[in-house]
């Protein structure tokens, strides 16, 4: 966090505008020589969901709480893994199929931590960040229901010991071979 602030880069953004994936990924390793891995996830709007076409969706959120929730998730990830840089961008407003919704990028020394932290942040974001999707379908507008699979995806991290992947990083295991 101190590092990111020193570089003048925000860790969390909630915005209507699109983002540049390449630029965001490049920024995660910028100005450092200790980053060995950058993992990222980009979520897009699909043109179909639950058996019906989706023309567009509008993402509503809770200004103020959204930023706090995302910052809290990033802090939790940093407490579990040794991370050099983290970036989370989530869009709101009206989006169409193929539009980007969310970006999560994580820089670390080794890929094990980067992959794990990236997935952790997405899983927690799905259940903790106050966003709601309303889809425009041929049958009219409908609010997307939360999925139980999202809850179980987030819950599985509760059984993963904190700092997993740090001492026994996959790269380290390979190096011993």
């Amino acid at each position, binding site marked *: 966090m101190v590092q990111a602030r020193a570089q003048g880069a925000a860790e969390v953004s909630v915005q209507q505008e699109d983002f540049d994936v390449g630029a965001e990924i490049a920024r995660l390793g910028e100005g450092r020589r200790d980053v060995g891995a950058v993992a990222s996830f980009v*979520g897009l709007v699909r043109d179909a969901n639950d058996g019906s076409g989706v023309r567009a969706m509008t*993402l*509503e*959120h*809770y200004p*103020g*709480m959204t930023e*706090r*929730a995302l910052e809290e998730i990033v802090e939790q990830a940093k407490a579990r893994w040794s991370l050099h840089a983290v970036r989370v961008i*989530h869009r709101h407003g009206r989006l169409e199929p193929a539009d980007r*919704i*969310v970006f999560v990028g994580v820089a670390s020394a080794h890929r094990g931590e980067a992959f794990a932290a990236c997935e952790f942040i*997405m899983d927690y*974001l*799905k*259940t*903790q*960040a*106050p*966003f*709601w*999707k*309303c889809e425009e379908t041929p049958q009219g507008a409908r*609010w*997307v*229901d*939360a999925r139980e699979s*999202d809850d179980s995806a987030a819950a599985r991290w509760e059984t993963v010991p904190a700092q997993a992947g740090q001492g026994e990083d996959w790269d380290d295991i390979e190096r011993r071979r």
Partner: protein
Amino acid sequence: MTSKVKILYFASLREAVGCAGEELELPAGIATLGALRSHLAARGEGWQALAAGRNVRAALNQKMAAADAALDGGDEVAFFPPVTGG
């Protein structure tokens, strides 16, 4: 000292109750998030979207909170359906 709370409603719940938010003088005996939810649900019609058994989540001062969370004057409360971002 105020005993007013600010209440916000989001997404399908906002549509059901027909407003995005309100300021409410905490009625006597309403001291927790759960009690406030029952009080609001009793307004009838669209407010039944807040009734017990409906899948409603809540936040207190912009943090996810449970039904037993204690309320104070000046608090910001929010009720909403389970989140669906990402």
